[in-house]
Structure formats: C-alpha cells, structure tokens
C-alpha cells in the first residue's frame, strides 16, 4: 500500500465529517474496544472503570466548585466583609478533610483488591477445554501458534466464541506489550520468558491485537485484526491453512530483517499449517543456550540475518531447563509443575514472575513463593 498524500481530498473530507459529527464521547466504531467489549474479561474491566469513575466524580467535584466559589466570593474588593487573616485551624474541618479521603480510598481499595484478584490475567476462565494459543511477538508482526489445531497465523488472531482461550506469550525481539483490544487488558512479552493471558469472546466481532511498547520503525504496523467467530467458522478457518508448513527451519525467514522494516503498511494475514511440535518452546529456548548470541542472530537487531539465526534443534522435552515453568501447559510434559517455587534468573530478584508463570491449577501461594 502506497503512502497516501498528507492532505488528500479524501482525508480532508473525512476530517471535516468527523469533526462535525463527533468530539462527543465515545465514537462508536465498528471495531470492538473498551467501549464495546466483546469478551467477559474486558467487559468486567470496563465495568470496574465505570464504577471507579463515577465514585471518583463524586469526590472530585466539590473541590472543583469550591475553589472557583471561594476565589470569586473572597476576591479583594468583592464585597465580602468577613476577613480572618490569622485563622489557621478548625478541628471539625480538619477531621473532615482527613476522614473523607480516607473513607473513599478505603472503599475504592477494597474494590481494587477484589477486582485485581478476580481479573488476574493468569486465572483460567470457567469452561472446559480452553483453546491454547502460543503467541510470539516479532518485530512488527504477531505470530499466533495453535499447537492443537496445528496451524500458525501470521498477523491475525482468530478465536471461537464461547470457548475460553489461554495464551502463552513470548517475544522474539525486544520487550513488547500485547493488548487484545476488545477482549482483555494487556500483558508484556519478553524474550526468553513466558507470560500468560486468559480471555474469551462472548459474541462474534472484530477487535485488534495491538503492540503498545515502542520498538522501532515498524511499531505502528503491529496492530492486526483479532476476530471472534462461531465454532463452525473457526473450524472452517483452521482448515483453510495452506501453503508451505511452518517449521523451525522456515521460522527465521518470517522475521523482518533489521532496519528494512517498512513503515506504516497494512499487515498481510497468512494462515499456515504448523508442523513443529514445540516451535514456541524453541523460540523461548533460543535465549537459554548458555552462550552469547551474536548480534546478527538476534531478531530485531539492525544487522539481523535469518541465515545466521536458526532456532535450537533437538527433542521437545530437552529444550528448556527442567525447572522452567509454566506448569500444566508445560513443555509437552503434561500437568505437573515440579518447580512451581522457582523461577528463572532475574525474575526472582525483580519481584515479577514473567518466566515462572502459573499453571492452570496453581494456588496464589505458589505464585507468591515464585517471586520471593
């Protein structure tokens, strides 16, 4: 797609039409977003936003009105005869200004805790047999692997309505952030580490998979359609995969080479058969080889060379250290999580646990211990 002129007639007309029609909140666009959630997680987050906003509006309105009133009422020469230049304390007012915010914050704090626990992105949603999607963030592309369906979607994410989805997410470049707009909130993805996100679609519709952490020239391209479709349509979509299957050997060529990333172009969606049992694990394992990685072999570097950056080969079970989480969906080995209380280097120090993610059945205590 060629870059449109700065001030094309179409643009000007669009602008004028929109200016006339809107600036009123919120513009109801066709795409799903925070105002039009099509998943239960985002719907709950949006509802929490609404109630916090309403409570907050009650609290912040008095000072807004008071400051204007007081300045006007007590302006010099404004006719007010009362002037108390040495008044500096009133017990009742003092109690009120401390107690008021305390009560409101206490109230909001309880909501904060309950909603945070309830909407933990790692907590699986109700419903049996979640769809597994392994998401890899590449420079200006999303690669969604469906290990059970054995397909790989580039620049498009499709999910069936009504079935919970569990994402495992990693980056094969610098740190990124995945925002499944219309479905749920976002989570970071980091090379060599796995984060998780659970969501579902409650009705058919189209949102976006947006990358929100600036990472170079192609940043604005990494916003691709994320569609919720009926179960039947999902089956049809899966069977439509065509062309050469995605293998570990072919994978490096999907990655844009360094600075040749084109700016501001519409991403092209591709659906390929997937013929590697553990491509996702290989991508994670790339950063756990106990050897320095040459710059040319690091996706995202300006001198990246697909020929110099093969993914680790080998049996699926031997790719990652034995203690590498996450359990439950673990590296081809089934349900157990032998080392739930250990995480990879760094995660423990930082109080975060991007790597040692929680398995589906784990309790809170395990995750906390993972970060101590």
């Amino acid at each position, binding site marked *: 797609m060629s*870059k449109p002129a700065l001030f094309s007639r179409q643009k000007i007309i669009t602008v004028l039409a929109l200016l006339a029609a809107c600036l009123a909140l919120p513009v109801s666009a066709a795409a799903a977003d925070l105002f039009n959630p099509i998943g239960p997680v985002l719907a709950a987050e949006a509802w929490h936003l609404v109630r916090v906003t309403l409570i907050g509006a009650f609290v912040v309105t008095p000072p807004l009105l008071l400051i204007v009133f007081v300045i006007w009422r*007590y*302006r010099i020469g404004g006719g007010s005869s*009362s002037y108390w230049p040495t008044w500096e304390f009133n017990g009742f007012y003092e109690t009120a200004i401390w107690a008021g915010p305390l009560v409101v914050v206490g109230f909001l704090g309880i909501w904060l805790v309950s909603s945070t626990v309830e909407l933990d992105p790692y907590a699986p949603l109700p419903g049996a047999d979640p769809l597994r999607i392994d998401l890899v963030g590449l420079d200006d592309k999303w690669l969604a692997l469906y290990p059970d369906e054995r397909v790989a979607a580039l620049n498009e994410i499709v999910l069936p309505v009504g079935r919970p989805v569990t994402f495992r997410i990693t980056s094969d470049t610098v740190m990124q952030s995945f925002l499944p707009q219309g479905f749920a909130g*976002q989570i970071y993805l980091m090379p060599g580490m796995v984060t998780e996100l659970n969501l579902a679609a409650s009705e058919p519709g189209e949102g976006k998979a947006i990358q929100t952490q600036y990472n170079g020239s192609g940043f604005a391209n990494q916003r691709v359609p994320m569609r919720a479709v009926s179960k039947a349509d999902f089956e049809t979509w899966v069977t439509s995969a065509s062309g050469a299957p995605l293998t570990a050997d072919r994978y490096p060529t999907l990655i844009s080479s360094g600075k040749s990333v084109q700016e501001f172009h519409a991403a092209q969606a591709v659906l390929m058969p997937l013929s590697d049992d553990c491509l996702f694990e290989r991508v994670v394992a790339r950063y756990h080889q106990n050897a320095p990685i040459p710059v040319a072999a690091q996706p995202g570097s300006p001198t990246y060379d697909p020929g110099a950056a093969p993914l680790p080969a080998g049996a699926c079970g031997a790719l990652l250290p034995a203690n590498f989480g996450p359990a439950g969906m673990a590296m081809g080995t089934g349900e157990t999580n032998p080392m739930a209380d250990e995480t990879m280097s760094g995660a423990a120090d930082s109080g975060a646990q991007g790597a040692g993610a929680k398995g589906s059945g784990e309790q809170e205590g395990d995750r906390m211990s993972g970060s101590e």
Partner: protein
Amino acid sequence: MNETFLLGRLSLADIEPLKLFQNPDISTAIGSLASWVVIVGAIAVVALLTVKGWWKPLFTEWLNTTDHKKIGIMYLTFAGVMFIRGVLEGVVMRAHLMTSYEGGFLTSEHFAELFSTHGTIMIFFVLMPALIGLMNLLVPLQIGARDVAFPKLNQISLGFTAVGGVLIMLSLVVGGFETGGWTAYPPYTGAAFQPGPGPDYWVWAIGLSGVGSLLTGLNFAVTIYKMRCPGMTFMRMPLFVWTALCTSILLIFALPPLTAVTLMQALDRYLDFHFFTNDLGGNMMNYANMFWMFGHPEVYILILPAFGIYSEISQTYSGKMLYGYTSLVLATMAIAVLSFTVWLHHFFTMGQSAAINAAFGVATMLIAIPTGVKVYVWIATLWRGRVRLRTPIVYLAGFIVFFVIGGYTGVILANPTINFAVHNSQFVVAHFHNVLLPGTLFAILAGIYTWFPKFFGFRLDETWSLRTAYLFVIGFAVTFLPLYVLGLMGYPRRSPAFDDPTFIPYVIVSFLGAVMLLGALTSLIVSFVVSVRKRDELAVPGGDPWDGWTLEWATPAPVPEWNFAVIPEVHSRHAFGIEKMSGNAFSFEESEIEAIEMPAGSYIGLAIAVFGTLLGFALVFWIWWLAALSLLVMVGYGIALGFLPNRPIIVPAEEVARVHKSWADAALGERRTRREDETLPTNRGYAAPIAGAHA
C-alpha cells in the same frame, strides 16, 4: 565501523547540520534545521556577550560565584533554555500526529527521537533544575541563613546538571539521540538493537547530571537541618522549606538506583556485560524495577516543591495565614514516604501475581489521601481571605481544577485491572501531563512571577504575565484532555502513526492546544522583555511587593549578597508578617551589625561543566584519550581544591550597615502600598499593614 584514535567512532555521517545539503527528505531536513537552530543560537549568544562586553562580568560575577541566589538564577536560566527546546519539540510532535493517519511527515525513528528527548529534557533538564533553582533562591532566605551549607558543592551540582543539558543539545548536532523514550528500556536500547551513539548520550546525560542532583539533595538537607536561624524550629519553617527538605531526602534516596542502572546499562553497552540483554541471563525486568525505584520518587521530587510554592502563594495572595500548617507538613512527609512504596504501578502488566499488583495498587491509592488533604487546605487558606486575582492565583486556580482531575485519573490508573486496558496508551500521556503541567510547571511559573522582584528588583509586567497564565492554562486543557479519550479508544502512546480515522478530530484539537502553548511560551518571553524595558516603573526596592509573610521578604530587592545584615531571630511561623502587624519589622540596632565573611569564588563548577561535557562526549564517541584526560582534570581539580588557599571575602560592617539603613529608613518613610494598588507603579515594595483584621 571505522574507529580512529583521535576521533573514536565519530564520523562525518554523524554531523546533522550537513544533512541539510544532502538532498534530505522532509523528516531529515527538520532534524537538520533543528541542529542549525542550536548552532545559530550559540553564535548569537557569543555575539551578544561580545557586543555588550559581558564576557568579563560573566566570568568574574557569575561563573565563579558561590552565591546561592546567582546559582539559583543560573539553574532557572538553564531550565528556560531547555524549556524552549522541549516545547518546540512538543509542538512538532503534535503537528506530526495531526497528519499521522496512516503516516505523517516524520519518520518513525525521528518521531521516536523527539519523544525521547522531549521527555528526558522536560523531566531532567526543565522541571528538576527549575525547582532546584527556586530551592536555591528561597531556602537560605526563608530559614534566615547567609548561604547553603556547602556553597562550592552547590556550584559543582550546577556544573553536573549543565553537563546533561549540554550533552542533549550536542546530540541534536552530532549523532542523534536514542529512540526508547525517556525511560530508555533495554533491551531495545541495548547495544544489539541500537549500536549508535543515541543510548550512550542518554546514559551519560542522565548519569552525570544525576550526580549533581544527588549532591543538591545532600546540600539542602544539611542546610535545612543545620543552618536555620535562632528560633526557627522545624514547625516554624515555611512550607516551601518543608517541601524542599522532603525533596532533598527523596533526591538522596532515589538517585542512587538511577545512577546504578545507568552504569549497568553502560557496562552492557561498553563492556559486553549482560545485565539487561536478551542472552546469557540478562533480564530487563531488573531495569524496570530499578528505574522506577528512582522514577516514582522522582515524580514527587517534581511535585513536592510545587506544593510548597502553592502553599506560599495561597497565603500571600489571600493576605491570610496558611490554614492547616501541621496537616500540610504531615501530608508532605506522608507523600515522601509513600512515594517509595508504589514503583511497581508503572508495570502492572509485567506478569507478576495479583497479590503483588493489588498491594502496589492500594499503596498508590493511599497517596490520594494526603494529596486530597492538601487541596482542601489550600481552599481553606483562601476562604475568608482577600484574594487578589493576580497571575499566581490564576495558576493556582488552574492547578487545583486540573490537578484534581489528574489525581483522579491517577486513582483510576492505580487499579491494576483498569491499568491493563489503558497502560501504554494516550490515557497515560494525558495523565502525567495533567499532573506535571498544572502541578509543577504552573507552580514554577507562579513562583517566578512571585519571587522575580525579590532577586531582580522589579516586578514582571502584569498584563503580559496574566496573558501567559491564561494561555498556559487553557492551552494545557485543549492539548491534553482529548488524549484521555484517545487512550480509552486504544491509541498507544509513542505511536508515530495510526490507522483508525476516528482518532483524527482529537489529534487536530490537541494540535490547536499545542499552538496555544507555543503562544504561551512566546507570551512568557515577551513578558520578560517588556518588564526589563519598564524596569524603572516596576522597581520595588523595598523588597516586599506582595506583602509576604516569610523571612525572604524582610530584605531589600535585589537581595544583598549577604542576605541579612543581622541573622534574624524568629518567634513565629509567619515571622515577617507578624512583625509587620506589630510594627517592628524594620527596627534594628546599628550596633548589632558586624563585618560579614562570605565564601570566595571558585571555578570548580565551571571546570566540572566543561570537562564533564567533554568526558560524556568522549565516552559517547569512544574517544578514549579525551575521556581519560577529562576525568583526570575533574578529579585532579577536585583534589587540588583541598590544597588551594581559601580566602573568604570580608564585607566591612560599615558597608552592611549603610545598605541596611538606607533600606530600613526608606521603609519607614516611603508611602506604603495597599493590596488593591499592588500592580501600580506606586508599588515600590513597601506593603501597607493589613487593615480590618478580626484578630
């Protein structure tokens, strides 16, 4: 990459001004033109100094001074220059974003450089030095001291701060800046992904200026603990001094993690360490934690002194003692402590457990309590006062209205669940501009208006100052409030382009706001020019143009080098105001006046600035010999300082008495100005006593 011994990795391709002549595209041309602005600006300054014959006074009265007032003025001048660049960058970015539906006129990388320098400059080289400048001007005067505890160290701090600013200016001319934002998160800013000089400029600009900030913190903490005049107990200190104390403590504790993290990043980039790299166990999560362990207290380093300024303004311009002093002190201290417990809210989305997120979310919300108390305290201070609608009150009103909204969106963002949806979006951009502009910037501008006459001897023109204030307040609202909507609609921050046409009206409105802010900046500059021209008419030799409460107003304007003829003794919180009420403000015993010993000048600050800049530049371009030489000079000068003779300047008692007597006599004889008339030329800085008080 070709390296030479003499010039390291510096090559002709790094020289931005040349690019204008190499058939550039529009994005490159804009960058190159900006570098020409720096060059022409520098030449203009040199020419002005030469034509006016200001070189000698520059070196003998300013660059070698240890006077806290002159150092404060230099901090503010430095911040002003950087502010001009920061605002212009903001306007260019908003212009780009207005046209960036499917791509604007800048390249992604150029846009990224702009948001990175804009953020770095505004935080580290505008707001921080401006506040430190005001602290320099006011703290010694407000606690009744002659100078800060360590005057030479003060100079050194200024030198280090200047290094950072000059390095960023140099990056515009040679080599370019990094593109990872002001936070410069690795691995994107690591050597594998940005091998060029950009991230190194960031490392050394932030690292070296951070040393200066840390020393400032130490200096002011000691000054406030040890140098208060007799009778100035902690609970009699003006509120601004309290906030300066909290800020100093925050500087001491918050800067070390930043310095450490910049040095770790330097080790990664220069010596192939693996703290934050993708391979060999590097983990950028450690960077995020350490950066924000600094970064969140930094927010309060920027806001607490602003709260102090608003406290002073509310009592001065309402002719009324500060309401709820104790509450304000407690609230300030509470905020300072809590500021160290909330850093994780900058990355709720990094995958940690719900329990950790909830704990940090609640801690963040707690800060709303003391902050809410403060807002009500300021309103109560104005209540039953005689509020003059001068420029600072316009800023104060704009501050309270918009800061309350900004705090409110902060409470919204403190909810991890909501944060998941709007993190990294324009909502966050709107939020922090919403607290930093009305919070800090307006306070600095209101503070400059209020205290300018104290140090320059004449007031600022009221008409132009008011215009500036209205333009800043309205321009802020028009520019940044639409971004809240854009954020909720899913527009990521730092995004050089967008593909959703429904964003377009908002970016247009936001650009119009940016134009108003540009107008505000212009108006601010005009207000200075007009005031300098009218300085005789606006002169306030009495030094008390606004009928102030605190000690700094009990001196002539401009303040003599020694501040106070006799170190004052205070008996209340509102020392000067109470004295004025009782009619004793200007009485003094000539026999009490003694000769005053002032510290001698020094060039250590200048040496740090010059050789620190050379050190930074040499490290950025791998010119090792120059780096070693510069470091040697800096350390050597520092050691030599201990051996150089230290000859303090003695000001004879007669001279002190003469200056003081002429001021006090005039104060008793001069016609006093009523508050209604304070913007008239008749306001010579002698305030009429408050009339009609019920107490």
